[in-house]
């Protein structure tokens, strides 16, 4: 029994650096200004984050990254989630780099991973389609062989952070299974359009109309990389969950502070038991999210079986973030609906990220299958 749920010295240092970064460089105004942008980030912020080594946080040192654990990535993303600071750090540096690591050939890893790590390439996944599902079986994007490479045709929908991407990893049906193609964003026939909607966040439509890519764009050596894709998604999910944990934590903190200052009916609102009930429920949601997430990260880092934990963490955390932001609005009421109120940033993030890599219904179904076989 080595039970120790505290952060390591390195993780504490990373957390401190990240908190300083948020205070100085990602203030409320910065976060607000990024809300309705295509990239969710500025070049300046992105370079700063890359300079801190965050863009390559889980990429092994031999490929130019810092080779940190998933738990460390979780610690970092949790702090960014308190903003919540949007941008492609998760989509590219966690999910994108994981896919390259799992699916790429040695040569592809040597080419792409250092570029992700230094921030010069932003590689995000375009997987889901108009028949929305995170089941790879639902993929209909077609790929055909041409003389010197492949041609892609189809539509990807709800491609997260594609607006900030320099390259997309397109999952397509090859006939032999699901192939993964690294596609330059500037390819002819490829268009990336932000999906409208206040709560949509940075999600995009990606249209591919006879997009030609070279032979080398196919990740790995065969036309079926389904397992690599699933494995990369599995490893990335709890890091995304940690971002939501940070969101829940920020909501709890701001709501408790408000309960100590806001007076109605001549007393602090935190003295009303119905208000207390809502805040306690927020704290319960936060702590359920936090500990399912961090145990899952630990299991993955320690190479323990983690399938059940991954589904549980995503189901619990997506629901918790949604619920915590709803409850925050109920405690704050009017003021929290102002466009510049941080609770509203979290509400947008909790809605737009709810379905990213599978919503609670999807993960609960998968969990039920693991538990019961049905």
């Amino acid at each position: 029994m080595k039970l120790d749920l505290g952060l390591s010295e390195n993780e504490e240092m990373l957390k401190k650096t990240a908190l300083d970064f948020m205070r100085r460089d990602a203030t409320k105004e910065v976060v607000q200004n990024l809300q309705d942008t295509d990239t969710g980030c500025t070049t300046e912020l992105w370079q700063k984050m890359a300079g801190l080594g965050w863009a390559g946080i889980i990429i092994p040192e031999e490929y130019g990254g810092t080779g940190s654990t998933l738990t460390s990535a979780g610690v970092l993303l949790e702090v960014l989630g308190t903003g919540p600071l949007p941008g492609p750090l998760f989509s590219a540096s966690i999910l994108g780099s994981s896919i390259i690591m799992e699916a790429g050939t040695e040569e592809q890893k040597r080419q792409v991973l250092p570029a992700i790590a230094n921030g010069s390439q932003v590689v995000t996944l375009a997987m889901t389609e108009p028949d929305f599902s995170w089941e790879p079986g639902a993929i209909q994007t077609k790929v055909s062989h041409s003389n010197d490479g492949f041609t892609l045709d189809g539509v990807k929908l709800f491609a997260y952070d594609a607006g900030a991407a320099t390259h997309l990893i397109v999952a397509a049906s090859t006939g032999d299974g699901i192939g993964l193609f690294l596609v330059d964003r500037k390819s002819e026939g490829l268009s990336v359009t932000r999906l409208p909607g206040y709560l949509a966040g940075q999600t995009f439509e990606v249209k591919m109309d006879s997009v030609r890519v070279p032979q080398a764009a196919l990740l790995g050596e065969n036309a079926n990389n389904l397992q690599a894709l699933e494995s990369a998604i599995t490893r990335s999910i709890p890091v995304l969950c940690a971002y939501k944990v940070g969101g829940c934590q920020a909501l709890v903190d701001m709501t408790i502070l408000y309960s100590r200052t806001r007076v109605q009916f001549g007393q602090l609102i935190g003295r009303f038991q119905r208000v207390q009930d809502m805040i306690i429920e927020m704290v319960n949601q936060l702590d359920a999210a936090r500990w399912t997430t961090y145990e899952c990260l630990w299991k993955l880092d320690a190479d323990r079986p983690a399938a059940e934990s991954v589904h549980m963490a995503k189901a619990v955390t997506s629901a918790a973030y949604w619920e915590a932001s709803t409850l925050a609005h109920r405690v704050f009421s009017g003021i929290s609906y102002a466009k510049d109120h941080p609770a509203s940033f979290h509400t947008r993030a909790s809605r737009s990220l709810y379905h990213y890599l599978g919503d609670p219904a999807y993960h609960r179904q998968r969990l039920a299958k693991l538990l019961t076989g049905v």
Partner: protein
Amino acid sequence: MDFSLEYTEEQEHFAGEVREWIKENIPDGLVNFRDPMKKTREQWELRREIGRRLGKKGWLFAGYPPEYGGGGIGSDKRFVISREFEKVGVGYPPFYDSARLAVGPILSLGTDEQKQRFLPPIFRGEVTTWQLFTEPEAGTDEANQQTDALRHDKEGEYFIVNGSKIFVGGIYAPPNQFLLLTRSDREAARHENLAMFLAPADLPGITINPLPLFVSGTLAQVNGPTADSSPAIKHQVFFDDVRIHESFLIGGDRDGWRVTTATLDVEHGGGQSAIPLENTAVKRFIEQCRSNPRIQRRLKENPQLLESVVDIFISSEIVRLWGLRNAWIADSGQRAPYVGPQLGLYTKIIGGEIIESLARVLGPYTFIESTEWSLAEDIFEVVQRAGLCFAPAGTPEAQKIIISRALAIGREPRR
């Protein structure tokens, strides 16, 4: 971070010692009942005997100071003891007792003489103790005590106690002593009018009557075994001009609320940490869901039931994880006073919900005890316990009040 609970080499070595001890000291004829109402006096005495033997070894109060008969061992070894007891199906500690609540206040507020007198018999498992706090008019409003303990006019070293307590005690009366909360001053302000005693239970003027309940259970322990879950019986205790000497008073005449708060901190989840065990009943239930053809048929016919299986799994996992967190917080000397009552609150709420989920999945089989017709027989224990989960150690609503204060909602945090 490290969530692992596998034994270290040192723990494995100690576990061998514990297993050896168990083999030699668990008496023949001990039976584990899913329905505690089936426990005979003889069976209860066997558990008391295990307690005495554990006490002699120093393992009954394993984490407490050895100079009073405690074991003085750390949480890593205490975890091994409880896990090894669980493996043989015996709860740890093996019998219902409230002495654990008295120990903290005696250590912090008792005189040296009281520590010498009270602690060794408790630590050695020689005495049983009931907590006597709840009264007809002092339920959630614990401070509203009506049982008077007033100093005698002439013999000032004696208190005269009159009043009654309700919903107290374990299966077999009488215990050896009471942890007794009383009102020592009828005029003084609330919270400053109380006195706490650790007093013998056989003084003249004390009457103990059984109070049957409709279902068995103690706390909503949905993870790990409880000590000997208590049966569908509690007691009323009446005091008629009972004389109690002041040497049984813990703290001062008006320190009762301070002592109560210290005991409630333990009862609400503070005190010495205990690392939660796997929820074996839920684990076996999930296994049954996978393997029992009747349950499989129900799940396939109505896939909505899968939601209930997932609910049960996730909530018991959250209880397990928060238990680990609480143990880690206590063992690493941190302060987070909301986590104890939070776990208590959540355990109670999901205790009720789990029965509902089970009833959806298993149908009426949920409520029958182990017979040839059982679908998932171990579940009966969870159903029994969770069925009576809201009252003990404070209602969920009372626990929310404690959590609010601990989180300083609507008030300045204490520095």
